[in-house]
């Protein structure tokens, strides 16, 4: 079935197909499971597939830039918290050299299959070089 606006909201229309980041089906995220101590934060986080589905809905709704962001977000669901914070820090002005940014991009792509993010960071590296925003 095509991912369309008609599916929106996913919470109502395809709840049975949704999984948490941990892989646990949405239907298993219950009050009983919580009180039994069976769930952790990872069971209440979104899955990359869901974000891709939302990206498709955004694109069809006429929001292509938001769709691209959600695509990048999907790639980042497997990146650990601390690593995300480090990447953000490296992208701030004058934190990284051109080569460091390129290496970061390649690492993300190789480790997490984060193709969109890799391209995005390489774009940043080019712009930073042009505008003097690399580490001095």
């Amino acid at each position, binding site marked *: 079935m095509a991912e369309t606006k008609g599916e929106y909201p*996913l919470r109502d229309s395809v709840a049975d197909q949704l999984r948490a980041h941990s892989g646990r089906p949405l239907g298993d995220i219950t*009050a009983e499971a919580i009180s039994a101590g069976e769930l952790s934060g990872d069971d209440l986080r*979104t899955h990359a597939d869901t974000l891709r589905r939302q990206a498709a809905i955004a694109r069809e709704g006429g929001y292509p830039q938001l769709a691209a962001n959600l695509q990048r977000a999907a790639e980042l669901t497997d990146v650990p918290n601390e690593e995300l914070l480090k990447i953000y820090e490296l992208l701030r002005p004058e934190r990284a050299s051109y080569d460091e940014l390129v290496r970061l991009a390649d690492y993300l792509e190789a480790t997490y299959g984060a193709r969109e993010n890799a391209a995005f960071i390489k774009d940043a590296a080019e712009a930073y070089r042009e505008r003097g925003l690399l580490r001095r």
Partner: protein
Amino acid sequence: MQRSKRFDLLAQRDINKETYVEPWPEAGLIVADSPYDPSPSIKIEDGRVLELDGVTRADFDALDIFIATRALDLDIAEEAMALPSKDYARMLADINVPRAQIARLIAGCTPAKLTDIIRHMNVLEMMMGLAKMRIRRTPANQAHVTNWREHPALLAADAAEAALRGFAEVETTVRVARFAPFNALAILVGTQTGRGGVLTQCSVEEALGLRLAMKGLTSYAETLSVYGTEKTFVDGDDTPWSKAFLASAYASRGVKIRFTSGTGSEALMGRAERKSMLYLEARCLLVVKGAGSQGVQNGSISCIALPEALPGGVRAVLAENLLASMLGLEVAAGNDALASHSSIRKTAKLMLQFIPGADFIFSGYSAIPKRDNLFGGGNFDAEDFDDYNVLQRDMQVDGGVRPITEAEALAIRRKGARAIQAVYRELNLPAITDEEIDAAAIAHGSDDMPERDIVPDLEAADAFMAGDDDFVAVIRALQKTGFADVADNILEMGRQRIAADYLQPSAIFDADFKVQSAINDANDYVGPGSGYRPGGRRWREMQAIPQAKSPEGFVDPHIGEPLSRLLEIGPAAPGRQREVVLALGPAFGGALATTIGGLDHEAVLEAILTGVASEGMVARIVRVYHSSDCAAIGYVGARLSGSGIGIGLQSRGTAVIHQKDLAPLNNLELFPQSPSLTLATYESIGRNAARYALGLATAPVAVEIDNGARLRLIVKTALLHRRETDEVCPERPPVELRFDWEPA
């Protein structure tokens, strides 16, 4: 120079506590149309932008690069730029042009083009534009909840009340940054006590904000600030790319994000590069869009006083809201920071967003006292709740909140405070005492709260931040302590995080915890009969302010036993003696027993008769049945009177002294302000009528002028008059009455 008493008074007015300055484009002190703003242009070759608003590719700064590669739809740009700006302006104001038709072309417009469109629009046209271009059909509102004590029970209580009042989002912040996890926690628990589905955030430094989101303590973030010049951006220690990455990082954790921009920040940071505030804002907005943010809070936010110091500032703020909507961004429209000392000015400004409606009319209505607002004071505060509800009711405009009763507020505040108390106890955080709960339930603000030792709180906050406990632990704590409903609401927020529906543009949760966004609630306004308008249940809810009374309640206190001393003795005949005829309204002393001012009809009669007798004159009393009109009643009295002088008296107390040769609607003396009339006044009315009958020179009765009486009493006046009119018998002639009374 002489001092004018009027100018002296004007100088004391709130409006003259403001600062006003003349424009100075070189310093960026100009809200729109700086002479240094570029003209719109674009050159595209092989899918690459070679010129943007007069700047060639080699001279692009970081923002130009970002906008050219990520924000503009190059497939449509040439067509879009070729269409005259005035045509866009006309389409925006034209109800026959739907949103989508404009949005398609706007996707190809450069910052200078966007600014140029606004040049052709006045505020009314922009309001029409905003009503149409706003992306979510249903307007909503956001609240700010903070307190200077950073007291968890008070935060939870205020958040619970804000949620009950209907705010779709609640934002908090910190005085001491280390409090961030606890403030976020209190707001989460409080809001989900008040209403499941309220989105929450804690405004702190970017990395800390992301950590809070990762712990599940917040569900949205809007502090991703962007600026309209490269230097300001870098001064803010970010680039368009770092912000865009942050946006993706938040989204990867299922957190809704909204960027922040707004006129004036560049000038305030000394880096406006001679450009107008609106042009720089247009650049910001294209960066926001290019970064893939679903929305923006603009409307000058904390810089609002700067555009308001300049001519056209309030217009420019509306313009920036409109530009964001045109670009397909959710707009939290400002109105948050203290913008004016003057109630007139702040309310007038609000109307520009309130009437057309915005995704969020306020990007933070201060749902707390001004003194407790850690965002720098609200433009509308908790003190203004009732005013705001009345504005909704007056205009049938949905401002995104609803009236609540005092009992509802007390109950939900206590429950919110008890819920956070239970969470603290279960998670071994410093205890919240019952005394603190009692105080929070009835508190208006921090001043009503007991002292709390913040040192252990801060240590516990550090440990909580460093530890593994997250919102799963919070849900479990609430389950264990009898707050299953609150636990379920937070759990459902977790499920919604998995579904990620609220990452779509302009998403909120409605009263039934269902997502509502520009995808499933897209704005379809194309003039009368279309778009959002509050009706049915929502309109009834907006009307039902607790201050509104039933109409019967106005009349009931004025009903009593008919006067036993006042007897009808037969048809009224014209008199031939020197006399004053006192003509009463049809309900006087019968269906009604007291005047609007609460005077017994019996006492009023005695007062008037005493006055007449004091001049040695006799009085006759008649009742008029064919009319309830004061002049008509008095005129009957005058025509029946042997002296030609009559007094007309309505049941609500309005009186007239009439003379038979005058026109029916003319009079000798009229006393329309019945609430101000005392028994002494009625006695004077009787005396003056007697003096007119005697042909004596007479000074009119002095009456206190109370211009507020009509304002306070107009409903009661109308309903008492209606009650009297119910007694009218058009065919029935006047009747002579006997009042069992002797002069003292």
